[in-house]
């Protein structure tokens, strides 16, 4: 699929939870993204020179739109949160490779915090039995996107909704098992998922995050340690933006 770098019109950009924003953008090419792919979002303020990698939450090919759900973490995402409907922002994408879709058996989707958004498109795409385990610190968001698509299990750190604890605690408590794990979330959570997958003997696909510059595999900033030689340098350093961001858990070190 071709990568484009274009101005995309913002259709809406609303806060859906404390510091979490929901934005739909118009772009034909990016509306064809696969689940797990991401875009680079460029800031308008010249002091912020690097694009922000943000995973694609959902696509709508019919209306040539795609959705980003992002958390305001720094000045760049703060700027993004202030963009108004009708304005345009520069985006590049779709980037990276998405999840490998296994249409058979029982899929376990695991999303932690701002790792939840890419699970929406994945849940829409997977046509098999599926359970999603959503992990939050406190406030719940995007839960409604999974209603009618999968069985939903929620874990919160503070116990305000669902099981008190992590997504791993929830999986253990509910004895959830299946044939393929798909996960996106903070690195400590992914480490837990990797260990759990090994223990249960279930293959797991993990979507990783790292600071990026180019987003297209040229600068070699966002590497992770891999079991096999990488195609670029042959030194077991896979590029998260290019060979990733999704890797099978047994193929990488975390």
């Amino acid at each position, binding site marked *: 699929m071709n990568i484009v*770098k274009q101005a995309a019109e913002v259709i809406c950009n609303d806060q859906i939870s404390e510091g979490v924003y929901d934005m739909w953008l118009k772009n034909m090419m990016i509306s064809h993204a696969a689940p797990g792919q991401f875009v680079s979002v460029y800031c308008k303020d010249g002091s912020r020179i690097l*694009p922000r990698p943000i995973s694609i939450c959902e696509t709508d090919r019919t209306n040539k739109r795609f959705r980003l759900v992002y958390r305001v973490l720094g000045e760049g995402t703060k700027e993004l949160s202030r963009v108004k409907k009708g304005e345009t922002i520069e985006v590049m994408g779709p980037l990276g490779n998405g999840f490998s879709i296994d249409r058979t058996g029982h899929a376990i989707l695991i999303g932690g915090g701002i790792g939840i958004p890419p699970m929406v498109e994945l849940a829409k795409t997977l046509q098999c039995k599926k359970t999603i385990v959503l992990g939050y610190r406190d406030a719940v968001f995007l839960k409604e996107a999974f209603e009618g698509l999968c069985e939903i299990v929620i874990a919160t750190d503070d116990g305000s909704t669902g099981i008190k604890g992590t997504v791993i605690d929830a999986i253990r408590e509910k004895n959830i098992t299946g044939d393929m794990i798909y996960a996106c979330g903070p690195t400590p959570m992914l480490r837990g998922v990797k260990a759990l997958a090994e223990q249960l003997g279930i293959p797991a696909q993990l979507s990783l995050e790292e*600071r990026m*510059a180019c987003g*297209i595999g*040229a600068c*070699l*900033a966002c590497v992770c340690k891999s079991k096999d030689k990488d195609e670029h340098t042959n030194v077991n350093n896979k590029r998260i933006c290019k060979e990733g961001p999704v890797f099978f858990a047994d193929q990488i070190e975390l």
Partner: protein
Amino acid sequence: MNTSVKIAGVTFQNPVMTASGTFGSGLEYSEFVDLNALGAVVTKGVSNVPWKGNETPRIAETYGGMLNAIGLQNPGIDVFIERDVPFLRSFNTNIIVNVCGKSTEDYIEVVERLTKKEADLLEINISCPNVKEGGIAFGQNPKMVEEITSVLKKHAALPLIMKLSPNVTDITATAKAAEAGGADAISLINTLTGMKIDINKRKFLLGNKTGGLSGPAIKPVALRMVYQASHAVTIPVIGMGGICSGEDALEFIMAGATGVAVGTANFMDPYATIKTIVGIESFMKKNQIGDINELIGCVEENNRPFGGCM
């Protein structure tokens, strides 16, 4: 209108090239940029054997710039010749191979592998701040700059560009040393050594603690150094450091650069190289300049000394 320039006897269709490390070997950016339009592709540093690079995080944004500590991850000269050279040779542009090493022998090994078939010029990286051995260690001492230049000159089949570090007190000393060692050209600046701390975690942002600062934030420093260096030597100078547009490139050319390189700007906009070329051309048209060579070093001198003293 002539936009072509000559560096070390090699003709460049225009002065705009890529800065090493920001453009890979061109493959990834060829989805956005017609490499045929560039004056040259300057490759990411190539060593004798594959290098793994540094621990992550390797990158941190700073105000108007960025720090990187990639650590020269590269597949080594064998893969480079086998895979990247045929790709680059399929385009009508000059190939400048950036060469890195931990010892003089490492550099020699790579330099000896590169002939007219594989490349057009060599750029010797004696200024990378992110590797513990080699790199900058060679580039901060004028004596060592001269020595490594003259040694490599004996082994090189191609013209030699020495890439200088800005992390020195006197850029003219290392520039002159490169010229004395027999360099055919010099390029500058490499990145400025910097640092960033995450105050919430009380940790360095980069795995390597320090990194090289690049981007628009460093342009005034780079321009000053290019001006000083180009007035200290007679060999051509390739200027770089924060160039994002035709206007930026023209500043370097007027300061004395024969060639210019676009680096970090590629991350800000994958079309940055092309936009720089177009910007130079439209300036020339608007100002009825028939030959870009008229602009090299054309900045008007006055009697004000260096350092901003009034």
